Each structure stands twice: as structure tokens, then as C-alpha cells.
């Protein structure tokens, strides 16, 4: 019996190692600050290093390290270096609140940024609101706006800001008979509400719609109905892996062979990468950031180059959001001349261009990010574009982030 016990111990040890791999937590920041002295300005990051968004959390942590090191190399802010303190919320709402609390009480951070799930955003927001600490929420959500504290800002995209540009573009360029696939949770329902309001004004006919449960891996049973309705556009709001699966199955059933065009509600580099060229070729998608849009936006090229030089891969949209967040905060502290939260918060709103043009407004701390429509490349097109591995899309339309994109204040 001894040997099996030994083996079990090895298994358990490996389990422990795996569990610890999730614990990115509490590494105090990045390399030693150069060119800046004095008390560091502390930035707390709360991110989900476990679960479905773990890869996005890593992108955001990497982007934050890059931004902090760049700022410190240039002399810091007000002569003080920035220091990062990164915590893992394990994709759990209460853990996000606990980590935020601990960052404020134990580490006395000047600002908190993160996390990548809406529940966690709300939880951190309520903690920072009570403590009077600045908070930058870095995930795509429309729900924070009603709850935000006066020092809360949102630096990821919200669908209400993206909708007017992208819906108009799709109706004019891809077709006006749509079949829409929504994921069956808040995000999908918000898009459905937007489409129900605007379809007739855009001249769009919704010939059918599917409310697919979140985490649907098998879309094949929806496909016969879609094929019979023969829409011009299949508009897929399902996220990430769900969307990739839909693309695969729709392609296998020949849904996209005819005159049916595909529009992806939102995509990002990691999603496209996991889908591969065969699936994304000729699909269209909304991207809140695309690393290859450097000819449209020079700042994108600068950021992508710096990020890639350090991490070996181009940045995804979530990396851009976090990089913007840190740089915007540093600018605001510089402008305010202090880390006092009320004066920094007053200095945050305005236009910035660190990864692409963005605008943050005063009334509700919401952001208008640049919106890009990208067409999927084939493997050959990517080779011709000079980057067979990462030139996944080409920009066919874009709108720089500006105040006019945002819905009226208080709506």
C-alpha cells in the first residue's frame, strides 16, 4: 500500500502547485523605480487570475507593469515612483471586495483598478465609494453607471457607447435582414434592448433571433432555423468561446457559404486567435482596440510595439484598457499636483491618446473608446500583411473615441 500513497502524495503536491499558480497575489510591483525618489504612489490591481478571464487578467497585469515602468523610467509622477500591488480576486465578487478592502487598509493604496467581471466591479466600487478612494473599473459593463461613487471611472467600453456607430455601419455595409444571436444574460439583454429600439430607424428587419444560454458549446441545433430564414447578416453577440463554437458549426453547415455575412458583436485578439484564420476569414467584428490599427492611430502602433517588445505578443483590448487606465491616472495626478482623490478625480475627465483616442467624461465617469470594425484575414492575407501569426484582422472602418459617442448624461 505504500506506493499508491506515495503516488497520491505526488498528485496532491501537484494539485497544490497548480492551486498556487493562480496566486499571482501580493507581488509588490515591478522592478526598482529609476529616476524617481520619494514615497511611492501605490496602485492596487484586483484581477481574476483564475477562471475564464484569467488570460485577460494576465494581459491587464502585464499592461499595468509596462505603463508603470515607462512612467517610472521617465521620472515618476510629481517626483514619486508608481508602485503596483497586484491581488487575485479568483473571479469571485466577495473576494474582490475583500482584496479591495485590504489594499485600502493594509497597503494604503492611492488608487484601485480592475477587475474583469461586472459583479466584482460593483463590489469594489462599493468599497472604494465608502473609503473615498479612486477606482477605475476595467471590464466591459453598462451596470456600473448607476452605482458609481464620485471617484469611480470606467475605462473599458460600454455597449451603449458602441451601438450607434457599429449598428449604423453594419446596416449600411453588410445588409439589412438580420438574424441575431444573443447570449442569455445581462449583456445580451442590453444589446437586445438597444436593437429593439433602433432597428426600425436603421431600416433593419430582424428575421429571427436566438437567446443562447451563456456557455453554449453546441449551436448546431439553431442552425437549421437560421438557414431557412436566409438572413443577409448573422449578428452574433455571444462572447468568446461561445462565438468561436458558433462560427465553427455554422461554417460546417455551410451557413456562411451563401450570401450570409457574419458580424461579431465584440471580439478581441485572444478570441480571434483561438478561432484561427479559417473561421474568422471574411467575418466582420467590432473591436474596441486592435493592435494593427497603427496607420489609423499612431499611438496604437507605439503601444503595440512597446508591449510586444516586452511580452512577445501584441496587446489585446484588455491590455489597452489597463495601460490607458494607469497613464490616465498618472496624468491626472500630475495635473492635480497631488494624490488627493477629490482633486485627482476632478482632473481625470478629458481626451487622451495613449493606445488610441479615448474620452472620459465628467458627469458619470464613462468612457468613449475608439471603435473599430475589422474584417477577418485569411492566413494568406496575414502573411501578406507581414505577420502570419497575429495579423488576424484588417481595419475596414473606425471612429475615434469622442464625447459625441456617449448617450446623454443621466440616461
Amino acid at each position, binding site marked *: 500500500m505504500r506506493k499508491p500513497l506515495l503516488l497520491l502524495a505526488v498528485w496532491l503536491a501537484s494539485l497544490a502547485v497548480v492551486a498556487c499558480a493562480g496566486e499571482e497575489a501580493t507581488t509588490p510591483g515591478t522592478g526598482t523605480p529609476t529616476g524617481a525618489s520619494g514615497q511611492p504612489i501605490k496602485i492596487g490591481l484586483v484581477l481574476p487570475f483564475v477562471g475564464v478571464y484569467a488570460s485577460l487578467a494576465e494581459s491587464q497585469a502585464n499592461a499595468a507593469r509596462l505603463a508603470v515602468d515607462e512612467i517610472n523610467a521617465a521620472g515618476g509622477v510629481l517626483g514619486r515612483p508608481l508602485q503596483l500591488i497586484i491581488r487575485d480576486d479568483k473571479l469571485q465578487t466577495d473576494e474582490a471586495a475583500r482584496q479591495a478592502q485590504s489594499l485600502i487598509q493594509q497597503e494604503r493604496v492611492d488608487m484601485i483598478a480592475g477587475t474583469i467581471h461586472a459583479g466584482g466591479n460593483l463590489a469594489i466600487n462599493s468599497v472604494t465609494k465608502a473609503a473615498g478612494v479612486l477606482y477605475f473599473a476595467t471590464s466591459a459593463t453598462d451596470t456600473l453607471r448607476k452605482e458609481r461613487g464620485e471617484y469611480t471611472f470606467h475605462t473599458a467600453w460600454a455597449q451603449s457607447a458602441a451601438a450607434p456607430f457599429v449598428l449604423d455601419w453594419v446596416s449600411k455595409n453588410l445588409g439589412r435582414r438580420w438574424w441575431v444571436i444573443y447570449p442569455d444574460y445581462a449583456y445580451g439583454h442590453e444589446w437586445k434592448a438597444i436593437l429593439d429600439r433602433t432597428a426600425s430607424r436603421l431600416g433593419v428587419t430582424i428575421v429571427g433571433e436566438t437567446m443562447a444560454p451563456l456557455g453554449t*458549446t453546441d449551436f448546431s441545433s439553431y442552425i*437549421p432555423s437560421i438557414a431557412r430564414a436566409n438572413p443577409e447578416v448573422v449578428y452574433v453577440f455571444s462572447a468568446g468561446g461561445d462565438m468561436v463554437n458558433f462560427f465553427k458549426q455554422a461554417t460546417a453547415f455551410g451557413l456562411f457559404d451563401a450570401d450570409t455575412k457574419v458580424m461579431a458583436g465584440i471580439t478581441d485578439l485572444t478570441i480571434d486567435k483561438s478561432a484561427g484564420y479559417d473561421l474568422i476569414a471574411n467575418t466582420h467584428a467590432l473591436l474596441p482596440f486592435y493592435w494593427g490599427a497603427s496607420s489609423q492611430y499612431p499611438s496604437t502602433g507605439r503601444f503595440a510595439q512597446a508591449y510586444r517588445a516586452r511580452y512577445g505578443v501584441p496587446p489585446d483590448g484588455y491590455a489597452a484598457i489597463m495601460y490607458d487606465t494607469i497613464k490616465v491616472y498618472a496624468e491626472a495626478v500630475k495635473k492635480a499636483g497631488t494624490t488627493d482623490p477629490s482633486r485627482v478625480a476632478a482632473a481625470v475627465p478629458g481626451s487622451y491618446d495613449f493606445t488610441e483616442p479615448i474620452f472620459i467624461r465628467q458627469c458619470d465617469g464613462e468612457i468613449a473608446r475608439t471603435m473599430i470594425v475589422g474584417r477577418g484575414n485569411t492566413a494568406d492575407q496575414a502573411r501578406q500583411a507581414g505577420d502570419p501569426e497575429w495579423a488576424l484582422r484588417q481595419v475596414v472602418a473606425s471612429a475615434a473615441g469622442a464625447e459625441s459617442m456617449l448617450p446623454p448624461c443621466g440616461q
Partner: protein
Amino acid sequence: MEEVASQVLVGLANGVMLALLAAGLSLIFGQMNVVNFAHGAIYALGAYLGFLMVDRLGVFWLALVGAPIGLILVGIVTERWLLRPLLDRTGLEPLLMTFGLSYVITESIRVGFGKIGKPVDIPGELSGTIPLGFMDFSKYLAVAAAIGVVLLVLTWLVLERTDLGRIIRAVAQDSAMSMALGIDVIHVRRIVFCLGLALAALAAVLSAPLRGVHPDMGLEILVTVFVVVVVGGLGSFGGSVAGGLLIGLVTSLVSMEWPQWKDVAIFILMSLVLLARPRGLLGRE
């Protein structure tokens, strides 16, 4: 009518994949009296083995042979060192072992292959569709389902028509008596355990080109497979096949009109079956 026909075809094709997985789970339970909670993770492991072979060798069909062989090796090790020492104990130890194993496998996949899924291409000769008049059916899914049916029939033939099958059924019925009659029960259990894993690998490789592979795929599908074996009858091969086809069919038909309800529908079906036949449709009394 045409609409229903297309949904039925799609549903049956998907049901075959579920049946392959459920049959393995059910066979293992019949022999070892262990609900193999690691079956989902094993399925994911098979899918990743398949992905690896397609990625390195570029030939999909080799993965269909290689992945099951890989999992049979995993099965031999797991059965010998992790399950057999616990089987004689009463209580939950073997169950907990498979439960833990499923997390070890899933997390190992995450560490080894990353948290993002990987694409597996449909083999070139099977891309495209078969025009059926009332719908265009995926050529790949048709062939995959046909292979699945052949595998199920072969398994059934082994169980029903061979000496090995008779021994397997005898051990399932009364392992103590089988042992008394001189049957090497441990050997039979190992064979069945590995057979179950091989079926899971085949289901995984066959599904991969349509669904991709990702670390959590096993945990996701395991719930549905449990429903299949409960509906069909735990321990019954025929029940797993019937349950798989039924669940595939119900999912497909419900999603035609009420897509939000397709996941709920199978649990409602399961509740109804449990009320009418607590041991499942084809379960032994």
C-alpha cells in the same frame, strides 16, 4: 415538417457523441461501482491529445487512433495506482479520488496548454455540406456520427456476442461470484475502465473539429452526461445509447422554438423519468 426533420437529424448526430461518453461512464460504473467524476476531465484530456496529434502530425485520422491509445495508457496507470487500492474500501474514497483527479487533469491541461481554447480544423476532405433537399447537413458531422454509430455497435457486439462480453456482464452482476468461479475480476475491471476511457477519447476527438478544445470542456459536458446515464439507467449500455439519443433529440427540438429552455428541458426530462422509472429507462431493477 422539414424544420422538425432537420432538428431531428442534428439532434441524433449530437446524441451519438453523448452516447459514446455516457456508455463509457456507465460501463465503468457497472464494473467498479464507481461514478467516475473524472470522466469529463478524461474527455478533455482525450480532446487535447487529439489536438496535439492533429497539430503536430497534421492528420486528423491519426488522432482518432492515437488519442484512445493515449487514454488507455492513462487508464492503466489510473486504475492500477489510484483506483484499485481504494476499490475495496467502503464509502466514498474511490468517488473522491475521481473527483480530485478531474481537477488535477483539468488544471494540468490549463498549465500545459494555456487557459484559452485551441482550434481543431475540420479535415479538408470533409469540409462542406451534403444537400438533403430540406437542409444542407455538415459533411463532417454526418461522418463523425456514422463513426460513432459504428463504435457503439462494435461495443455492443463485444458485450453481447463475445466471451469477454459475457464475463464483463457476469462481473457487473455479481463480482464476488465471478471471482469464486475463477474470473480475474481485477483484469476485467481494468479492461472495462480502459474501454470507457477510449470511448471518451473517441467522442472527444470526433467533437473537437466542431467545438474546439478548451480546459473546461470536460466539466461542462459531464453534467449533461450524468443526465444521460440517469435517464438511460446507470450501468446499462443500451440505456446510455437510448439516453444519449433522447437527450440530443430533446435539446435540438426544444432549441428550435425555445432556445433559452434547452438546458432546462433535459433536467425536466430527467425528473420525469426518475418519477416514472427511478432506475432509468433501461436500468436493471
